[in-house]
């Protein structure tokens, strides 16, 4: 048998250390202030004890460092861990203080001159068992003469962890420090479960029930989603940071809780042998998500073409976040040839047609316009009972001395020329 006892330097990370240890052996148990893990069955898989210890405690790792000790039984490993600064004595010389089962009998044992494990074992077994309940059994377990019984740790199905903030947070950005700690524990959980996260929920508990006479909710929430499953916390941290920078707390918060909403099996990050495929920089969906969070989803858009004769309906703009998959899968190459008449469309379109002044029966835009080509008649949209009615227009290519070539139209049902309405709709660039 081969046992490792480890004690995390931060009490809140005990659970996460347990999850981390579960990656290396299925036999992990809580033992008072520490964790004990039995590794004899998995030593060969990880290439020996030294390699296993290097992987388990080596840097870089998401959690704060832990103290550890190893021994042939869990109680010995634990005793050595408790004795850590004092060095490593022989098993018989271990003091009785480091054995939990002896802690309540310590004064009596001290008075009869019994200080070490060896002293206790030299006493008659029957009398010891009668006077000090549990001590004999603990010693026999520690020496490996009796089997040890542990309640083995199991990985939870979903990640749900709650931490107390070091101080009351009055601004959302102050939550970030604790959120980072939660994220690193999430990473450990994801690695242990072999899953990638798609959606998270950060929830903070408000310290006040009422503020200025207003009832406050007990919790406030923030949801973070990403397009592709990830185990990489750097992207999630940045997303969370952007969202927290925009969020506001209704009242000071004292607890923070992180939950995983949606996880999928993790396929692993795929690398490439070709150097040009491993371009430095972040992935496209990460860029789009970060831009969408900071600028607003409506400000990060991609066009989508529609079959319509009205220029303003020929394309619509959609948030890139929803179409990120489309953008990412678009391959290099040439598309099918466009319609020849499309070549006469302008390259810029005004978001709203601009009404033009008419002077001396000529439309004006930074001076009088000269019509060069047209009309191109559009008579469509009668089925749309919108406020604007059907589009009945004549499009012209016009030239302005100041602004170059423009794409303008006049609305057609005009009885007399005094009321002809001209609009600027596009610009040739």
């Amino acid at each position, binding site marked *: 048998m081969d046992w490792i006892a480890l004690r995390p330097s931060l009490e809140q990370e005990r659970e996460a250390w347990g999850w981390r240890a579960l990656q290396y052996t299925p036999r992990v148990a809580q033992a008072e202030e520490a964790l004990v893990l039995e590794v004899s069955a998995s030593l060969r898989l990880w290439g020996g004890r030294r390699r296993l210890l290097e992987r388990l405690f080596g840097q870089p790792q998401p959690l704060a460092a832990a103290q550890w000790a190893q021994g042939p039984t869990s109680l010995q490993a634990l005793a050595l861990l408790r004795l850590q600064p004092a060095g490593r004595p022989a098993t018989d010389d271990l003091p009785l203080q480091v054995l939990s089962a002896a802690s309540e009998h310590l004064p009596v044992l001290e008075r009869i001159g019994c200080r070490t494990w060896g002293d206790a074992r030299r006493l008659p077994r029957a009398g010891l068992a009668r006077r000090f309940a549990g001590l004999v059994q603990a010693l026999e377990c520690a020496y490996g003469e009796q089997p040890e019984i542990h309640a083995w740790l199991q990985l939870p199905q979903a990640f749900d962890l709650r931490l107390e903030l070091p101080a009351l947070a009055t601004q959302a950005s102050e939550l970030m420090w604790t959120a980072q700690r939660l994220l690193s524990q999430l990473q450990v959980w994801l690695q242990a479960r072999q899953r990638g996260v798609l959606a998270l929920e950060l929830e903070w508990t408000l310290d006040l029930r009422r503020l200025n006479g207003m009832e406050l909710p007990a919790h406030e929430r923030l949801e973070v989603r990403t397009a592709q499953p990830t185990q990489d916390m750097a992207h999630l941290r940045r997303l969370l940071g952007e969202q927290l920078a925009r969020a506001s707390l209704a009242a000071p918060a004292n607890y923070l809780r992180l939950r995983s909403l949606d996880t999928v099996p993790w396929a692993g990050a795929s690398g490439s042998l070709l150097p040009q495929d491993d371009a430095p920089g972040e992935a*496209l969906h990460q860029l789009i998500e970060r831009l969408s969070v900071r600028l607003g989803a409506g400000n990060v858009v991609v066009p989508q073409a529609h079959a319509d004769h009205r220029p303003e309906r020929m394309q619509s703009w959609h948030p890139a976040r929803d179409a990120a998959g489309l953008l990412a899968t678009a391959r290099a190459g040439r598309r099918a040839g466009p319609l020849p008449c499309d070549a006469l469309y302008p390259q810029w379109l005004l978001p709203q047609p601009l009404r033009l002044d008419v002077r001396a029966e000529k439309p004006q835009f930074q001076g009088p316009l000269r019509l060069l080509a047209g009309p191109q008649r559009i008579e469509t949209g009668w089925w749309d009972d919108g406020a604007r009615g059907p589009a009945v227009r004549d499009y012209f290519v016009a030239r302005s001395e100041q*602004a170059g070539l423009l794409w303008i139209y006049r609305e057609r049902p005009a009885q007399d020329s005094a009321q002809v309405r001209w609009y600027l709709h596009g610009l040739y660039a």
Partner: protein
Amino acid sequence: MWRGPDLARQPAVVPSGLAALDAVLPGGGWPRGALVEVLQQSPGRHVWQLLLPALGRIMQDEAGPVVLVAPPWHPFGPGLAAQGLRTERLLCLQAEPRAARLWATEQALRCAQVAAVLAWLPQVRNEELRRLHLAAQQQERLLFVFRDAKDRRQPSPATLRLLLEGIDSIELNVLKRRGPPLVRPVQLPATSRRLAALLAARHSLRAPSRPPLSAAPLEESHGLDRTAAIP
């Protein structure tokens, strides 16, 4: 100031697709991994005519999107697609504050999958441009920054500075490039070939007899009289 090693290395370029322009650009095209500054009086004019061939080409070669940061108007898909641009791979960012535009531009440059970045930055300082230039250099990106023509006297870290002028044809002054300065502006057509052909046909049709088409005679326009019917 150019140092010897800068000039000795042949820069990576994307051919601009315009022969007259390729002849004056060092290396024969738009430099990759360097800031290209385009100064012009009215933002957006002639931009696509100047850049479309190169953008169409880079979209063929690379998979990522072309990012437009704060374009002055909406790019019109059908008009651009007709000239070989894959419009479904345009990514438009609207950002009003100056700092947000700069941030978005830099983030786009640092992304691994972006093919090119076009940014309209009317007020931008020299050190901010340098930052963008370095980001483009790091990632070997195609970066175009459009500024006001008033800024032509200000110093700039760009390796290529162009002044875009003209109405009926593009007059392109190369203010700064690697190599000897260019004295005469380059003349480029301001309209696509099809539109130019249409306008020429119209002109020759109208010139001998008819007066210029005015807005008044509405009754004469007819549904069959469509531009699409004219070659």
